[in-house]
């Protein structure tokens, strides 16, 4: 009798386990790993992968991080070795290896190979409200920028209020009359106290490619790329752009396109259609190297 009760009870337990697993489990459709050969694409899981940090020199990395924090005047906070976490990630989207040093106050990312500062995040949640005029805020943005870069080849391309405490500023490197959006120094800050909230420096080099095709050739290429019958007017300008996958086929679930490792001079053709389509045509090869559309619409 006891055995019978035991067997029945065990069956009930098993049923409960299986039943509740079915009810509550979050079933993800297993991704097929086919079509992995898609050019320049990568799975989300592979896009940012933590790697082994056993061989990393914690002291050296903390010293390097603090060097940047002090030199760039980003914060007066320090990393205490006992309360600091260090992790290394392969950023396969951008072909970089990043060393991430963090504590409860901040997160610093260094390029593991060059030692360059990639980004800084201040975890502080409140700052003094800004009462300064935009002209003074601009001066303060330039003041912060001078602590970081004094080469004189950068141009302020964006200064915008984020909320009542914080402004965002973005500087890009200039090549003659063009700015390279791949080489940027960008930060958000509290103008009232000059505290830096976030900072990033990107160094995607400009290929310095020649202009071998004319504007009218670019116009023809753009018109031919789309249906010739759609007679949308277009404006055209030469700009440095980061080639992108905007004109490529959408990828299957879980896959994304990798980022180009250099920027190029291109004709940017802006169509006067409902999506304000921008088509990027390489100024040397005449190839379509990117596209963007807006997510707005008539309302």
């Amino acid at each position: 009798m006891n055995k019978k009760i035991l067997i029945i009870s065990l069956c009930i337990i098993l049923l409960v386990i299986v039943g509740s697993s079915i009810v509550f489990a979050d079933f993800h459709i297993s991704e097929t790993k086919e079509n992995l050969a898609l050019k320049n694409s990568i799975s989300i899981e592979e896009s940012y992968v933590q790697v082994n940090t056993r061989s990393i020199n914690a002291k050296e990395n903390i010293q390097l991080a603090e060097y940047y924090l002090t030199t760039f005047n980003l914060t007066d906070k320090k990393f205490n070795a006992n309360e600091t976490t260090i992790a290394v990630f392969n950023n396969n989207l951008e072909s970089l290896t990043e060393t991430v040093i963090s504590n409860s106050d901040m997160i610093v990312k260094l390029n593991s190979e060059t030692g360059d500062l990639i980004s800084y995040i201040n975890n502080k949640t409140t700052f003094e409200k800004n009462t300064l005029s935009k002209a003074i805020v601009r001066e303060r943005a330039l003041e912060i920028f001078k602590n970081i870069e004094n080469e004189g080849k950068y141009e302020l391309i964006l200064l915008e209020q984020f909320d009542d405490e914080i402004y965002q500023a973005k500087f890009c490197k200039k090549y003659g009359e063009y700015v390279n959006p791949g080489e940027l120094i960008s930060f958000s800050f509290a103008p009232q106290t000059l505290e830096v909230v976030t900072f990033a420096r990107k160094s995607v080099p400009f290929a310095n490619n020649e202009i071998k095709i004319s504007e009218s050739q670019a116009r023809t290429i753009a018109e031919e790329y789309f249906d010739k019958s759609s007679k949308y007017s277009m404006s055209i300008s030469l700009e440095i752009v980061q080639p992108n996958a905007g004109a490529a086929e959408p990828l299957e679930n879980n896959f994304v396109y990798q980022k180009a490792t250099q920027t190029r001079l291109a004709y940017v053709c802006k169509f006067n259609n409902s999506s304000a389509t921008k088509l990027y045509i390489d100024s040397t090869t005449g190839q379509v190297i990117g596209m963007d559309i807006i997510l707005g619409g008539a309302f």
Partner: protein
Amino acid sequence: MKKKISKVLIIALILIVVLQISSFAATDQVKLFLSSELTSSSYATDTMNYAVSTFRTLGYNIIGSNYTVASLKAPVLDYINESGNNYAFFNFSHGASNAFWFMSDRAQYIFPSEVSGNWHLVFLNHCYSLATNTQFAQAFNTIGYTNRASLGWFDEVTDGASAEWWSYFKNVAGTTNLRSACLAAADNCARYTPIRIYGDTTWTGHAW
């Protein structure tokens, strides 16, 4: 002896049920909608994949297989207005400050007045979603509470800019407060990414 075995088994049963519920039942659910008009954009699918990964990192239970392609407003409003654990929402569509839509037919526009509920994390991925007014943030009821926020764009945004911003946000979301994470992602973008947040900017965005 029989009584003892029964007691032990009942306790074991209760323990198993409790453990199963706590292991599998996530409190917050999210459903991510992509406009059928934008499925041909590689940036749309990139953004959706980044967003799915980000919501998973933040501990949300994703309803459906990754994301849902929508044309009509009805299934979207069904999700928005249904009671239960639907506490997070994401759309990738065309739109403006006062409406968003999954197909360009005015009858299919979703207006703030059609939104109800007490949402935790909302991302409105369309142009001007959080522009000059906060109608949608108010409609989703994320303003004035702790651990609730609406995120979106203050200005016009392109599909490429959205994908670029999400590619960075994915790696910082949950590691710092939402405001710093949003700003850090925007710092890295070559394109214009006018991100805004209304609600608790000090929250990390984790499901609760």
